[in-house]
Each structure stands twice: as C-alpha cells, then as structure tokens.
C-alpha cells in the first residue's frame, strides 16, 4: 500500500475530525481561558482570617488614626480610622502606602556595622557594647558634650528617653530637625508666654488667609486640614492663598493672590498697618487682653504702608487694602503661615510673629475658629536623673549648634547650623552623632556641605528602619521596628486644636531582627553603666510607656487615643498675663526684613523655590512606589525631574515644554526637563521636594533631583532658624 499525498490528507482530516470529537480541544480552550482570567502573576491576598486593627500613624506628626486590615499575618491595607477626632476616616497617600514601607526592600533587617566601607551584619549585643565602649571612652576623656543626637521630634516617650540619655550622659546637644514648629512655638512663647504647639480651628473659621501654606498639601495634620478646609468653605467661609505659584492649595482657594515668595512677612505687616490705621481691629481684645500696641504701630509703620510694600511683594496696594478689610471684617478670620508642608524649614520667626499679630488684632488667638495654643503634654513625669560630675560639667557646656547661647538666646534647636560648625575647624566638635528620626543628609539645604560635615564625625549611629541617606553614611545602624510593628505614644496631632495622645501599636510581629529604639537606648545606657544606667530603671520600653501613661494607659490601649474634648486654652502666661506685641524677648529679634534669596541677580536671573506635593509623602521618609507611580508628569518623567517655569520666561530663554535644560544655582547644577506653567510668577522657577534620592531602593533612588542639593542655608537673623525659601538660579538649554 502506497502512502501518497491523498492518504496523508485523509489521515490528517480523520485526525482533525477525531480530535474535534474528543475532549482535547474543548478542555484545553476552557483551561486556557480559566488561566487567562486568573493570571497567576496577579497578586491575590491570601485567604485567611481578616482582622481590622486600630492604631495611630507615625509617618508624620499628623497623629491620624488608622485602621489596618490584615489577612492572616499579612497587612493588606491601611485606611483612615472612622470616628477618630483628627481624621475621621480620612487618610493621606503616604498613610495608604504605609503597607509598602512595612514590606519595603529597603528596610534594614538586622543591626549593621560599616567595616572598610561595606556593611557587615552584627549581633545586637555586640553592636551596643561596641558603641557603649566608644561613648565611655569619650566620657573618660571629659568630652561628653561631643555627643549629639538628632531626632524629628522632641515629644513623647521615645524622644524623652533619648533626651534623658543624653542629659545623664552629659551632653546638651539634643537637636530636633527644622520645621515650622520652631517658628510657631517661638511666636507663641514670645507673645503668650506659653510653651505650646499651634493648633488651628480652621473648620470654624469664616475667612482663612494662608501665607503660602500648603493647607491641603501636607501642612499640619493633612487629613484633618483637608476636612477642616472643606467644611469651612462649605459653610460659606472663604479661603485666600498668597503664593508665588498656583499650588494645589491655591487652585482650591476662593482667591489666589500671587506674591513674590520671601515677602509674605512684609505683606502681613502691611495688613497690620492697614488694620491699625483704619481702626479695624477688635478693640476689646486690644484693650483688655493685650499690651504693646504702640510698639506694633511702630513696627508696622509707614515702611509697611500698602504703597511701600506693593513693589516688594508684587501685590498691588489696593489689593492689600481690600485684603486687610476682608480679613478684619470677617466674623472669624484666621491667618496661617509656613510655606509648603512646613516640614523641612523653620522659617523666619519675624514673619510668623507678623502673621500671629494679625490673628491677635482680629481676636483670633485662643478663640473659636482661630489659633489655639495647645500645651505640651504633661504625662511624662519621670524622676530627675541623678547626675554625676562628668554629666553636670558636660551639661553646662554651650550647645554645639549655638541654640540658647548668646547669639541665639531664644532658639531651642538649630540643626541647620551644625554643618557649618562641623566644617569650621579641623577636628569635629561632634565626636558621635545619633540619629533617631529625620534624614538630615538628604533634607538639609546644601547637600554637599552637609555630606562633608557628616564625614568628619567619627561615629554616626542611625536608628533608621530604612536605608536612607543618613543611614547610608552611618557607622552603625540599629534598626527600629516600623510603626506597624511597635508600641509608641503619639503625643500630639500637628495643627489639631485640642490636646490629643494617640497610641501606635504593633499590628504584626516584627518581620526582621529589629529592635524598638526605646529599648535600644535603654540597653545602651545599661552598657555604659554607672549613673547613666541608673537613670533607666525600667525593664523595657513597653514597661516605661505603660508607666508613663499611668491611668491613661488602659483607655489608650482600648480606644487608641485620648483627647481632651472639653479643652479650652489657658490664660496667657506672659509677665503682664496679656498678649504681648512687644517685650524684652521680642526685642532680641531684629525687626522684620524680607530675607533675600542667596546668589547674585546678574549671574542668576531667576529664583528657584521648592514646593511640596502630598504625592511624595509628608515627611522625611522616602516615598514608597505607590506614590512615585502616582506622580504627575509635570514633576517626574521617567527619571528626569522637571522644573516649572512661566512660558514668558521660557520663551526668552528659548526653552520649549519638555526641553532638556541645566538648572544652576550658587550651590550646584542639575540636569532637568522644562515644564511650562502659566501658574507660576515670571522670574520664578520651582521644583518639587522629595525626589533625587541616592539611597532607598530602585523604586525611588535616581529619580529626579534633590532640590536641597541646589539650595543654600539661610539663617534667620536673631534666631538662627533655617529660613531658606529660595535661591537665585539660572536655567540654560542643555
């Protein structure tokens, strides 16, 4: 039998018919369709018991309540906690993305020691013993004051433990990272005599005037202010934004008044001038509750008449007068300040005072719908530590940053001055630096100088849970638990007008070989021994926290927060028991003058200003991938950072939208792309903060430009506060 073409075809046709009559094609088709409907690479949460655990977010000082959804032992979602007094179900993008911080590839999984420039894993006890030996050595040499400690907070049990450690060890150099809290606290202290945090009853105001504050861009407690601003506007209130560019807050305001950045204080004093001159202030407040009105009249004298500041601020005299009338005429006006999210720079305290005076003149201090002095929490009431001779002597030394010294008697912390101090001499006055919060290597202005300064410190110990820029420069990393793994008190919600304590609690067991910073500090103290060890009588941080919170502990553990719902602000605590527009302390600060952006106008015809976006987080923690992915392409395209410029300026420079350019400031230069925007004032260029990381993971590192590497520190006169708001810049075609 011959097999020819026809018989082969017959075989194939028979085969095809048979296959069709068998389950093979149908089953395969169906299985493939099921497979394609359930791509195996699409992540599906594991099937397990679902649990919802209430805790408090510690990613920024906002103090929001969160509800964490877990499936089995895996955290799958973070939501805003409903019924929470601060955020009532609201949550910011960083809060949602907190899950990615817990499972981040950039987490430090075990203590690390840098040996010959490379990280080696080290046992906890060995690391603590080694660091303690170095500290003992410094003490024996009589240099306990050469130890400094940087933290992003000075409140709550962890910060207090760090401070206590430093005190009993013998160093006055506990330094909080700069933020607008510095200026607000100083303004409240100088005028009201209160050591307090500024709270804003924005929801009950009827007119809000914001001097460049990113009220819906991460300023204060983000979800609280989001809601408060919306509630205020819905109730018929009005919101005016003074800013150099059309920020999100400006876009969502009822009135946007472009103003040359850096001159906000002059405008505030001009408003004061008009209000005083036209008698628009609340007379009963000024008569009964305030002193120093004459000095104020002098301060806001003719130099600040609307016509005088119109050119400086770029706001027309008539607009200033209208604004003053609208503000003073409102039933419950409120003025707020601190540019952007206010978390990197202290600001110029004279500007904050000017804005605070505005509030006082209109009776909006410690009143409904106004600024409220929220007292520092008082639950941490530990016995005074017993100091030995070395500690007492060390504590009497001047602070390394100059805060509280003869040049800056009013300031408490001046981290911005540290790089300059360290770079001044041959040997660093800081021999050991501890960093428990904040990321100074990234967030201080002028990165190159900061790096040079940090490199001079022979021992840097970071408690960071993530490999951030500062941790990368450290000699030891003693990684903290991430906030979803630990207990911690959150002693206030920034900008919230009532005293509140939140409790962060562990939602999952620690994933890695990390340790609570509170415990690490106590163990370090115990390893040093003597009086240092004796100051820490607690068995563990957990025991310390429970004891410190005392009778609030049970309620906090059950409820998750404690709030003083019936809070009413205390009476002024100044000598006169009144609000003081002028006194001896205020006189220590020179009168307000607008601070110039560093750099000469000729070589640098433009001014570079930073701005913030909620999409890059609200603190110093690097943005997790959820956020980076959500960035608009006017901020980041691929790995290129963008610089915003007015089309008129761009045309003069021959730059088209999306063009490659080089941005140069007196501090450095960077390759950028150009983003044209009609919303920015001519003469300004703006770039977002939070990009250009060199540390962290591949989702964040190398994307965009760190604007701090182009910025220069600007010391506010009299206080030494970091007041950099911009820098002269030049943009050229690449």
């Amino acid at each position: 039998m011959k097999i020819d073409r026809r018989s082969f075809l017959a075989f194939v046709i028979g085969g095809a018919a048979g296959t069709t009559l068998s389950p093979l094609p149908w089953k395969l088709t169906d299985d493939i369709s099921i497979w394609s409907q359930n791509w195996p690479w699409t992540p599906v949460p594991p099937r397990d018991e679902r649990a919802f655990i209430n805790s408090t977010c510690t990613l920024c000082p906002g103090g929001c309540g969160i509800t964490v959804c877990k499936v089995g032992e895996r955290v799958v979602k973070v939501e805003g906690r409903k019924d929470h007094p601060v955020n009532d179900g609201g949550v910011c993008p960083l809060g949602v993305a907190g899950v990615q911080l817990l499972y981040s590839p950039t987490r430090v999984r075990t203590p690390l020691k840098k040996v010959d420039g490379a990280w080696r894993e080290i046992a906890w006890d060995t690391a603590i013993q080694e660091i303690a030996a170095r500290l003992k050595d410094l003490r024996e040499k009589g240099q306990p004051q050469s130890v400094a400690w940087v933290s992003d907070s000075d409140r709550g049990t962890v910060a207090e433990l760090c401070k206590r450690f430093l005190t009993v060890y013998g160093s006055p150099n506990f330094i909080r990272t700069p933020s607008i809290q510095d200026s607000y606290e100083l303004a409240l202290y100088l005028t009201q005599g209160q050591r307090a945090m500024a709270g804003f009853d924005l929801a009950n105001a009827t007119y809000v005037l914001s001097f460049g504050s990113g009220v819906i861009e991460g300023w204060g407690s983000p979800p609280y202010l989001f809601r408060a601003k919306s509630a205020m506007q819905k109730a018929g209130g009005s919101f005016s934004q003074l800013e150099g560019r059309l920020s999100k807050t400006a876009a969502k305001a009822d009135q946007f008044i472009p103003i040359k950045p850096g001159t906000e204080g002059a405008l505030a004093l001009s408003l004061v001038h008009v209000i005083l001159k036209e008698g628009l202030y609340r007379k009963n407040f000024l008569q009964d509750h305030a002193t120093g009105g004459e000095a104020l009249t002098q301060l806001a004298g003719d130099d600040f008449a609307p016509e005088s500041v119109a050119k400086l601020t770029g706001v027309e005299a008539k607009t200033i007068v209208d604004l003053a009338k609208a503000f003073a005429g409102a039933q419950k006006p409120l003025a707020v300040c601190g540019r952007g999210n206010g978390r990197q720079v202290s600001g110029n305290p004279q500007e904050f005072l000017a804005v605070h005076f505005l509030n006082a003149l209109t009776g909006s201090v410690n009143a409904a719908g106004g600024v409220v002095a929220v007292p520092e929490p008082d639950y941490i009431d530990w016995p005074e530590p017993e100091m030995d001779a070395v500690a007492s002597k060390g504590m009497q030394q001047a602070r390394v940053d100059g805060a509280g010294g003869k040049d800056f008697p009013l300031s408490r912390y001046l981290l911005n001055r540290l790089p300059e101090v360290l770079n001044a001499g041959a040997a660093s006055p800081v021999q050991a630096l501890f960093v428990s919060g904040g990321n100074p290597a990234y967030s201080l202005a002028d990165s190159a100088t900061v790096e040079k300064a940090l490199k001079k410190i022979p021992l840097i110990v970071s408690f960071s849970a993530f490999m951030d820029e500062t941790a990368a420069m450290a000699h030891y990393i003693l990684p903290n638990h991430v906030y979803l793994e630990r207990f911690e008190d959150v002693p206030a919600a920034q900008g919230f007008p009532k005293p509140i304590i939140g409790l962060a609690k562990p939602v999952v067991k620690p994933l890695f070989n990390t340790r609570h910073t509170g415990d690490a500090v106590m163990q370090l103290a115990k390893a040093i021994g003597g009086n240092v060890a004796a100051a820490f009588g607690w068995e563990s941080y957990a025991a310390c926290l429970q004891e410190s919170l005392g009778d609030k502990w049970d309620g906090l553990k059950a409820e998750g927060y404690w709030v003083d719902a019936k809070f009413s602000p205390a009476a002024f605590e100044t000598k006169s028991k009144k609000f003081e527009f002028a006194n001896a302390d205020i006189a220590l600060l020179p009168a307000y003058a607008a601070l110039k952006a560093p750099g000469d106008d000729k070589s640098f015809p433009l001014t570079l200003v930073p701005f913030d976006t909620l999409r890059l987080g609200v603190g110093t923690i690097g943005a997790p991938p959820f956020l980076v992915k959500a960035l608009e392409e006017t901020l980041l395209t691929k790995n290129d950072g963008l610089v915003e410029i007015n089309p008129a300026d761009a045309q003069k420079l021959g730059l088209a939208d999306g063009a490659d350019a080089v941005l140069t400031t007196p501090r450095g230069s960077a390759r950028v792309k150009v983003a044209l925007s009609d919303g920015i004032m001519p003469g300004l260029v703006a770039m977002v903060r939070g990009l250009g990381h060199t540390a962290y993971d591949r989702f964040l590192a190398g994307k965009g430009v760190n604007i701090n590497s182009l910025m220069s520190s600007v010391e506010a006169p009299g206080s030494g506060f970091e007041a950099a708001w911009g820098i002269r810049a030049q943009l050229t075609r690449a």
Partner: protein
Amino acid sequence: MEEPKANVTTSGSEHGEKKEDGAGGPIILFFILGLVSSLVVGWIFFPPLVYSTKRQPIDFNHALHNGLVDNGCESCHFFREDGTYSGAPKLAQCVQCHEEANSEDPEEIKFVENFVKKEREVPWLVYARQPACVFFSHAAHVKMANIDCVTCHGPIGESESLRPYQENRISGYSRDIWGKHPLGLKRNPWDRMKMDDCAECHAQAKVSAGSVQTQRDGCLVCHK
C-alpha cells in the same frame, strides 16, 4: 465536443475519481486511522496529562474526627464572628487536641512532628477551591439558604482517608472544579462546580438575589 470538457476543472475531478477508483479503500482506511488514533489520544491519553497528582501533607481521617466532635462539620469548619468562613482548620485549632500525639497512628505522629512541634501551618490542598476570580460566600449558602455541607461537598465527612489532589497543569486549579469526567459530565453536585453549576442551582431555586453593590443579578454577584 468531449475533449474540451475534460479541461474543465469540475469534470476533471470526476475524471480523477474514476481514475483513482481502486484507491478509495486506503483513503478511507487512512481517514479512519487518523480518526481512531486522535480519538484514542483525545479520550484516553490526553485527560490524565492535564492534571498533576499531589498527595495531601497528612492523610486526614474525617470519619474518625466526625465521631469525636459534638457539632458536626462546623466543629472544625466554622464561621468566624464576622460571618466569614474559616475553611480548612488552622494549626491553632488542631493543637487544642493534638499538642501531643494521642495515638500511635503514623499520620498523627507525622502531623505532630512536622507541623505542631515546628509550629508550621499544614499546607492543605483544598479540593473545592474556586478560582481567584470567583467570589463565593459560604454564609449566604449555609446560613441564609440553609443548605447543608453534604449537598455541595458530598459525604466527605464519612471518608477515612484523603484522596489524591489533582491540579490542572494549565490553570492551577483543582480537578473538582472542572469535573472529573473528561467531558465534565456529572452525577452529583460535587463532581463539578463550574459557573453553569452555580447558575443551574440558582435557577432551580429561583434565587435571583442581586449583588450587594449593584442590587442587580448577573455577573457581579460572583465576579466582583
């Protein structure tokens, strides 16, 4: 006149058939050969190839346990407080009775040694696990419609040992979903649980409960 006709294609084939008359036998033979061999491949060789067979980590005896507990299936396969269904028990439940081995049964000893002492969860293979795109609520069926376990799962509670688990090599799901029969034919509800089976029962019971989200019947009831 006949010659030009031969050039026309149609008549050409007629011409060809006549010519190949004697070869009709082998062609049909080859056709049948192709048909039969593909049927054999499709029906006999193919079906087992689609599945890989796995053994359960522990050969659990349902019948034995069912005799010892008070509350039937729900003693171990219970509803959680929030109404969700617990499914296969977790180690914490087993440990309540099996902190130590209670017998000399090799499977129990294996369980205690490999899982209880090492505090590892047992990676049970779940025969009735629906694909990830399916939303199924036990509460709606058991608590609200009062359907008992056996109706859908069969008399698994009476089994003394666990049968092998067959996993579809393409989709990764259990064979119980698509059905044991190569054509997916079934005699009992637990022989197969595809979309049509859900729909059939819903149609019979005249259930047209809508989706909670859309208040409508249709896709979104099960495919969220």
